[in-house]
């Protein structure tokens, strides 16, 4: 979308101008559950979604709306719903589009909870998923069935860093009249806007780089407004009659913003996975510096890729910017500003060496998150997957020695020094 203002400006301003009453330059935190109606007519209009506005914070809130409107502007969408977490966002999208008996095609190389939700939880509600290699276009094509209601993948997979060929997959989806839903957590709109490449719906875990400081859990759905929901039989939840609101068709009444209108009227209303206004404020503060942070994240990432690749204690390094990565070509094409600030690498000496590395570093934090301003590490072999033997680890796409690094914003020399300490202990343990 053409914007009057560019990305860095929108990161600071979109969604908010100082309010007339107080002049508050910062976005106010509307810590309230509900809103006084001016009159009964206004109340009726809001309840019936005849006009926009706030009536109860479970459904919408002025601080959260600033965040939503900022994200919609940054990602080039038409509308956005912010919610309690990245997982809540995913569930809201699936439940808005799919019903029992429906089918999903999803990448088999995604964040664990994304896989779990589709593999274990959704089937209990009659929604089945076929998992495919995200870059095997034939496999994706073949997996789409008559009852397939969405195709789901991540731009940069977590933790394998596989890069999905979004333009080609979007083409397949378009041919089959199925929306392409993309988890864009690892790239953020700074590195890449999937809507520009044909994706229809974007999901973010705001907890990660968008919030950027490891202080608030949040999620968002950005609606590209570029999907034709007119097939009433196939997309009855969007274009068929709604159970309330005089039985309207969201597609006929709201057109490009049909999906988010549906989610607002049903998902937020009936499930209530609401973001807290305070967290919306924290995430907004993070987004103000997103362009600066992402630039530095990528500078540090590039330095550390080089450092690790050349280190004698490191057996392998995986990042889509390396030509050894199978998705190097597509990463270069769709992620020209960088393929994210997560690096995975292996240390010589297997599981024990990995454990030693993690326990020796002092500056980097050992924890289960990515996208913080601080450098984060995790060694699945000695933590999340410690109960699995090497073979079981391999079948989960992990190796004993694998370390996942989320590169932070510290002085890169200090990160290197810290890693030197850890890698020295790796060499010792061999």
């Amino acid at each position: 979308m053409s914007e009057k203002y560019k990305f860095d400006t929108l990161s600071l301003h979109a969604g908010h101008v100082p309010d007339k009453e107080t002049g508050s330059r910062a976005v106010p935190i509307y810590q309230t559950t509900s809103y006084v109606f001016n009159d009964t007519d206004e109340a009726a209009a809001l309840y019936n979604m005849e006009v926009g506005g706030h009536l109860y914070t479970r459904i919408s809130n002025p601080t959260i709306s600033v965040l939503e409107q900022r994200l919609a502007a940054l990602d080039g969408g038409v509308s956005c719903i912010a919610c309690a977490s990245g997982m809540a966002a995913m569930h809201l999208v699936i439940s808005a589009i799919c019903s029992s008996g429906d089918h999903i095609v999803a990448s088999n190389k995604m964040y664990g909870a994304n896989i779990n939700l589709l593999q274990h939880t959704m089937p209990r509600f009659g929604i089945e998923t076929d998992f495919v290699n995200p870059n095997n276009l034939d496999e994706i094509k073949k997996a789409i069935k008559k009852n397939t209601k969405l195709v789901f993948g991540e731009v940069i997979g977590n933790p394998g860093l596989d890069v999905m060929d979004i333009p080609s997959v979007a083409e397949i989806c378009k041919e089959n009249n199925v929306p392409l839903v993309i988890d864009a957590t690892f790239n953020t709109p700074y590195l890449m806007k999937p809507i520009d490449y044909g994706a229809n719906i974007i999901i973010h875990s705001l907890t990660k780089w968008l919030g950027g400081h490891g202080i608030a859990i949040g999620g968002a759905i950005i609606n590209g407004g570029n999907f034709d929901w007119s097939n009433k039989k196939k997309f009855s939840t969007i274009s068929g009659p709604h159970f309330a609101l005089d039985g309207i068709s969201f597609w006929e009444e709201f057109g490009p913003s049909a999906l988010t209108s549906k989610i607002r009227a049903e998902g937020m209303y009936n499930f209530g996975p609401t973001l807290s206004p305070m967290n919306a404020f924290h995430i907004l503060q993070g987004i103000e510096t997103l362009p600066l942070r992402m630039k530095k994240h990528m500078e540090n990432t590039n330095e550390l890729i080089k450092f690790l690749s050349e280190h004698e204690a490191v057996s392998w390094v995986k990042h889509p910017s390396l030509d050894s990565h199978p998705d190097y070509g597509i990463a270069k094409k769709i992620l020209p500003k960088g393929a994210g600030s997560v690096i995975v690498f292996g240390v010589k000496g297997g599981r024990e060496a990995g454990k030693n590395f993690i326990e020796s570093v002092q500056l980097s934090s050992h924890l289960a998150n990515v996208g913080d301003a601080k450098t984060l590490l995790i060694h699945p072999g000695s933590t999340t997957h410690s109960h699995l033997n090497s073979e079981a680890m391999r079948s989960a796409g992990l190796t004993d020695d694998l370390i996942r690094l989320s590169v932070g914003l510290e002085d890169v020399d200090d990160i290197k020094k810290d890693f030197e300490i850890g890698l020295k202990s790796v060499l010792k343990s061999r």
Partner: protein
Amino acid sequence: MYLKFKNIETFISTGGKKLNSNQPTICFIHGAGQNHFSFVQQIRYFASRGFNAIAPDFPGHGFSKGKCNSSIEDDAIWLSELLQEIGINEFVIAGHSQGCLTAIEFNKLSLKSLKGIIFIAGSAKIPVNDFLIEKAKNEPEKAYKLMVTWGHGKHGSFSISEFPGHHHLGEGFKVMEMNHKSALINDLSSCNKYEKGLDELKNINLDCLAILAKFDLMTPLKFGKKMVEHINSCECHVLDCGHFLPTEKPKELNKIIYQYLKNLDI
């Protein structure tokens, strides 16, 4: 609702409600390159307040198929025939932008059941610059972007919306993109050709309402005011927004229109 009109699939937004022949009707007329989604926050509001509220997608626009009309005169005739087809009684028309020209021309058809005319962010003459015409002809998507960016006031550019989570510029662009690619150039050419608007205003013998936008770069306020001056009876309001007034200031607009409809006693 969908209907076959002149053998062409035609969509008329009714806010999801069945039309009631005992109720008066307000008919919204969209602007150049727009469609019924311009009035998302008007249709259901009025449809819930004792009116039939309708917004047809003109041919080649929104969900309506068919070849676009090629003049304001054709638009007015098409609309009057459509209204006859769906059989409404007393009604008011509310045009936005190019819809104001259609409304002026529609007045000439002297339908007895027409009880009032509302002009929203428009004027009686809408000349279009050559640059926009050229873009609309050869690169319509660029033209949509230009119009959407110029058309929204400060709040649009800053993505401020009364509808939580909505992004005016993104949404405005997609609304235009839903039309047939020829819709915008047809509409802009129709606007350009229609030069008699100011002269026709003196023939309006109904009490009218104008709601104009202070920061309207598409149909500047001074031209809107000139239109108002040429109408025998026209109440005028100016709102603090850009050209896409129905989505930028929906609540203020609805309140003003509602009061006007009440005063008309239809």
